């Protein structure tokens, strides 16, 4: 890592060029591949977050070598601005060239924080996507987002870290709908990624899979009840992932919320919706209930399975159809971490069970999955819109 105190754009680029020359020399003539597939701008407000971001970016080099511009902004009385450059290289595997990305870290304190955006813009590599990653509780209020919005292709947040999940969901849905006027809105509006949603992918896959089997598909249109349970982080109930899953089911299956759409009983939320009734005429509807509840420490399932308490997140998803033939589809986290047991049970038939991977991916994996996306995730948009409609009742 090389240090440069003078904040001069020309100097940063020159330092980077020097860095590549040194790298090539160190590699002893072996090829060092500078492979950049995107610009990743990230913001940290303390050094612990900055270290976390740097570590994640290192891991990302394998799948998405990039130019990272990390802005570390902190309050201070005296203004202070400095920049470092470094190359992020993978240990070369046998016979393969070494792949490196590059990282520029900008430390800004006090009044200098306002200059960060002006420093970031000229450092972006032309003709590559620009992704802004804002970890933390209130990303949409971040001034950096306001300044960069016009050049952004994607904004990545994590709604699991929002202090007020209901308000946060509403804000995200508004951002995703890009209703504001001004640069970076309309069709050019940046795509939105929420790592909380990304983490639900295994659950969505395992749930969707039941209904790829043709004889089971009709039951999907007859679901009357969904039960979602989760293990709260630090014992504090947060229904956010449950709301996203409920929003996803409702958006995909055409369930519409009733006007008195939500009831709260302790930490349990009950969403009241309706769906088209199957086989009884075009306007008939049937009620659907979605229950979202935390597994608290005194819950029998939690005390049986010690690991569960250490792994917050979804714990079980049940879909039940009682309209006509009874059928029950469930994905339940297994005793062994990283797996889930899936069961499809239709009345009168043997249950079909299997253990499947249901990994809890780390941050780098979640980011990598979102960076693979080139366009807007419309399914997420629809699920978010529905989830924010539920959240509006919680406000």
């Amino acid at each position, binding site marked *: 890592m090389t240090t440069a105190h003078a904040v001069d754009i020309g100097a940063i680029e020159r330092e980077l060029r020097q860095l590549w020359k040194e790298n090539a020399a160190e590699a002893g003539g072996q090829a060092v*591949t500078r*492979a950049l*597939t995107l610009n990743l701008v990230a913001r940290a407000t303390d050094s612990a977050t900055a270290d976390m971001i740097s570590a994640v970016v290192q891991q990302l080099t*394998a*799948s*998405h*070598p990039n130019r990272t511009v990390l802005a570390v902004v902190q309050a201070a009385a005296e203004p202070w601005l400095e920049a470092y450059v470094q190359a992020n290289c993978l240990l070369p595997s046998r*016979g*393969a*060239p070494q*792949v490196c990305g590059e990282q520029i870290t900008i430390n800004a304190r006090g009044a200098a924080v306002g200059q960060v955006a002006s420093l970031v813009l000229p450092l972006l590599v032309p003709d590559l996507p620009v992704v802004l990653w804002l970890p933390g509780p209130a990303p949409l209020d971040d001034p950096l987002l306001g300044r960069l919005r016009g050049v952004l292709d994607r904004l990545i947040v994590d709604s699991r870290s929002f202090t007020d999940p209901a308000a946060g969901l509403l804000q995200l849905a508004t951002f995703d709908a890009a209703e504001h006027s001004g640069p970076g809105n309309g069709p050019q509006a940046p795509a939105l990624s929420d790592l909380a949603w990304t983490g639900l*992918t*295994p659950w*969505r*896959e*395992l*749930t*969707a*899979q039941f*209904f*790829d*089997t*043709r*004889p089971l*598909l*009709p039951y*999907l*249109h007859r679901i009357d009840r969904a039960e979602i349970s989760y293990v709260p982080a630090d014992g504090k109930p947060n229904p956010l992932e449950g709301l996203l899953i409920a929003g996803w*089911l409702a958006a*995909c*299956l*055409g369930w519409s919320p009733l006007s008195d759409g939500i009831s709260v009983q302790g930490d349990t939320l009950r969403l009241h919706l309706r769906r*088209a009734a*199957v*086989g009884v*005429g*075009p306007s008939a509807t049937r009620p659907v209930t979605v229950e979202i509840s935390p597994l608290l420490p005194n819950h029998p399932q939690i005390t049986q399975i010690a690991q569960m308490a250490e792994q917050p997140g979804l714990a079980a998803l049940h879909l039940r159809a009682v309209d006509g033939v009874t059928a029950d589809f469930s994905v339940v986290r*297994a005793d*062994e971490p990283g*797996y889930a047991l*899936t*069961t*499809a049970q239709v009345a009168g*038939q*043997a249950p*079909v*069970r*299997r*253990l*499947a*991977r249901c990994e809890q991916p780390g941050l780098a994996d979640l980011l990598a*999955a979102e960076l*693979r996306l080139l366009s807007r*995730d*419309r*399914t*997420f948009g629809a699920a978010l819109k529905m989830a924010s409609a539920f959240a509006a009742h919680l406000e």
Partner: protein
Amino acid sequence: METTTLDNPLRSGLRIGRTPEPYTMVIFGATGDLTSRKLVPALYNLARERRLPGGFSVVGFARREWDDAFFRQTLLDGVNANSRSGAVEPALWESFAQGIFYHRGSFDEPAAYAALAEQLAKIDAERGTGGNRVFYLATPPESYPEIIRQLGAHGLGHAPSGGSTRIIVEKPFGRDLESAKSLNQQLLAVFDEEQIFRIDHYLGKETVQNILVLRFVNSIFEPLWDRRHVDHVQITVAESIGVEDRGGYYDSSGATRDMIQNHLTQLLCLVAMEPPVVYDADAVRDEKVKVLRAIQPITPEDVAQYTLRGQYSAGSVSGRPINGYRGERGVAAASQTETYVALKLFVNSWRWAGVPFYLRSGKALPRRVSEIAVQFKTVPTMLFADTPMNAIEPNVLTIKIQPDEGISLKVGSKVPGQAQIRPVTMDFRYGTSFGVASPEAYERLLLDCMLGDGTLFTRRDEVEASWSLITPIHQGWDAGPAQPFPNYEAGTWGPAAADEFMARDGRAWRRL
């Protein structure tokens, strides 16, 4: 009003594709190498990546006196040794293995098929497989006709109760045009063409699938992809191993049947074909068949001009000694079987007339490498006086299939500070650009079969068209004089005559 549709609404926006219906895969010859080295590791990895539904089951059908427990243990050892994801995850394997069963029987024993039908019905009831079956012929090809006949005789050719039945046939698919036709007739007496999946694992490789993507998604290559701009095409599939323990089979087959008829012909088709009207099984295969029909057949009289054969003698590859071919077990002492073959083919279409396609494949060559190189014509005149015209290397677009999957383009460039021009290579490697391990060919192909997508499988007319090009070559060779075999040392790039074969056209094989 019925609101159910055929589409699963929960699939929308998920990055992995639809999961197939739950099938029971019956593997004939399940105690063989292919099952534990390729098939079951591929199935396990599909299950691991959530690509298979609950209920998916495997029934191994073979003669040996094994039982479920021994079969499962053998497969577990096979997966641990051969899976691209490393040793199995025990919890996952345990769940997967609950659906693995062994069925002992001889392929010609009617009772064994009656018992198989019962076992399949039991699995349908207990594991929800709904009458869906894939029969996988992984036996020596001599057993194919008997198995196909018995399946038909026991009503296993078509599924009960709305399920679907498919059959996968491993290579070799026949040994000449007549036997391929006869195998097709036997299959079609029991199954419909849509149920038959003739596997060529080359088509399951990501880089091979990428040939069509490269050609038909990028606008810069297609305008150059014809006789006006391409000088010639070289397709190489080189193996560094000898025949090892396959001597008995190989000696009755040879490089042409083993590699050219299937893998190299497929590669040629993908490079030479016209864009299909849509990307589906029949449209893609229609275009491939058109290429095969446009290839000018090498008649028995022409073999000396358009073909070249070799057989390796003892030598060493990468420091490892290799026996001479004739010294391998199962090989005749005076064997005339070729372990190296080179062909020069012409595709008589408007696009390709006059452009030679050179195909070569061999065993005991210095490296394991498969690639397609499209060599473009040189510039008409030299502008830079300091470099002589003959020092200009033509542009070459190389599609590397293995081992380093990727694409490279050779362009001429100025040497800094000097008046010289040197070729430089622009390299794109899968490994570094995507950072994701490619799935094994069998994973893709087994999944496609269960999804009913035959795009990457060989159709009846395709396999017959390809044999109708190969069979006259064998007739010509059989009628001609004996070859002075062995004529190349293991660990070299084939017989010296192979270089002359190219040199007389003023060309040379690529140094790989």
